[in-house]
């Protein structure tokens, strides 16, 4: 009898433990409020390479450097509720491409904005989430505040598990109202004050395909309306509407022998400005011992140019832009993250390099002389209140 009870209790313990762990396979969106509060801070340095002499009128020019500080707090409010606070501060300085000219026919060169631009940004978001037996639902409010740009956004999201728990349906809606008031300085701006709205929807479904593998597919739609032109670019006039679609897929697989997980993600993007892009990202999460993890990651991105992009923008066209972000290019990036746990603390370090070139892309187009390469470094600490 005692043996039978012990066996039952062991089985019950196994079932209970598994049930407690169930939410994890839905990732960040668990179906139970977090058992403990958690807090984290990060400091990141983002540094763009200087513009090259050969691509610039005049001497090479410093581009953007950004210091970023982040704070994250997630706390259970009750068995079914949690609240999260995320704050991000940015301090930016440097210069950006103002427009593209030609030194000799067919040799485009950038003219930089000249005087160094200084700006700060504060982004605060509060999210509350309700957890129920077969899913969860969240509501979020976010406020972003810069000298020249303010945004208020709300979003709703939810997840619902099938009866057998093998499949999860997810959805999200968001709306934002953004105000633009460019800083008046050394270059004329395309507007003194303007506005834009963003509406977005996303649906996804994830499916467990084995004890160690899960797959997810998603469809997204975003509508932007209002002043979508870059206020600081000299030759820039864009449509006041933009419709965007995404199709995405993700795969997670754990290799028991290697004690590692592979993450593979793909996104297809299309819009009515003529831009189409593909993004592929792969990361390897390798555990080393019981307390350390190293995560090498690579990302490839390629995009087609917008219908109205040209290095030598024709100001007589209805719409025109020489912004490198609307040109055809490919980008390769890669880096390494390291995480080490010490008791309730964990230390996180990240280094990443991003480089772009027109010749690396799948689409042909005019190569912009303003394409960006950058380094990013992050250091952070997390703490769990156990």
């Amino acid at each position, binding site marked *: 009898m005692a043996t039978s009870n012990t066996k039952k209790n062991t089985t019950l313990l196994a079932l209970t*433990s*598994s*049930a407690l762990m169930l939410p*994890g*396979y839905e*990732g960040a969106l668990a179906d139970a409020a977090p058992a403990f509060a958690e807090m*984290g801070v*990060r400091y990141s340095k*983002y540094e763009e390479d200087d513009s090259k002499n050969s691509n610039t009128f005049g001497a090479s020019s410093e581009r953007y450097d950004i210091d970023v500080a*982040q704070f*994250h707090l997630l706390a259970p409010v009750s068995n079914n509720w949690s609240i999260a606070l*995320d704050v991000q501060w940015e301090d930016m300085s440097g210069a*950006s491409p103002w427009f593209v000219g030609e030194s000799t026919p067919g040799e485009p060169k950038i003219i930089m904005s000249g005087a160094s631009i200084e700006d700060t940004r504060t982004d605060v978001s509060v999210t509350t989430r309700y957890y129920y037996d077969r899913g969860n639902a969240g509501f979020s409010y976010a406020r*972003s505040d*810069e000298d020249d*740009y303010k*945004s208020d*956004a709300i979003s709703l*999201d939810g997840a619902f598990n099938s009866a057998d728990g*093998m*499949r999860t349906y997810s959805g999200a809606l*968001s709306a*934002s109202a953004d105000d*633009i008031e460019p800083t008046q300085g050394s270059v004329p701006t395309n507007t003194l004050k303007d506005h834009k709205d963003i509406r*977005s*929807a*996303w649906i996804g*479904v994830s*499916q*467990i*395909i*084995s*004890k*160690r593998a899960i*797959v*997810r*597919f998603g469809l997204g739609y*975003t509508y932007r309306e209002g002043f979508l032109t*870059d206020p600081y670019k000299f030759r820039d006039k864009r449509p006041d509407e933009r419709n965007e679609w*995404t199709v*995405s897929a993700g795969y997670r697989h*754990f290799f*028991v022998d290697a004690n590692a*997980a592979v*993450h593979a993600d793909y996104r*297809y*993007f299309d819009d009515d400005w003529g*831009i189409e892009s593909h*993004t592929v990202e792969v990361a390897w999460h390798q*555990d080393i011992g019981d307390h350390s*993890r190293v995560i090498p990651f690579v990302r490839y*991105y390629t*995009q087609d140019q917008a219908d109205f992009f040209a290095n030598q923008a024709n100001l007589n066209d209805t719409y025109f832009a020489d912004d490198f*972000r609307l040109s055809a290019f490919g*980008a390769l990036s890669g880096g390494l*993250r390291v995480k080490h746990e010490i008791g309730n603390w964990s230390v996180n370090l990240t280094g*990443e390099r*991003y480089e772009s070139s027109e010749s690396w892309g799948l689409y042909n187009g005019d190569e912009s002389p303003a394409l*960006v390469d950058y380094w990013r470094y*992050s250091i952070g600490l997390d703490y769990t209140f156990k």
Partner: protein
Amino acid sequence: MIIVKCLLAFALAALLCGCETVQPWERGTLAREDMAWEGDIMEGAIRSQIHASKEASSGGSGAAGGGCGCN
């Protein structure tokens, strides 16, 4: 668009196929932190923001939210 059609076909196949039934007590590996869709929230936030401000595409893992004047 061929890639998108292949992706959608694969998605349909994956969702309709007779996937291995995994009982609740067999989902411990799937519940691991390193199997999550979105891992480090702060790392994900800063990477998404940088990519959205240097490339013409964004989104794919949720609703868009608000914009920023990030150049």
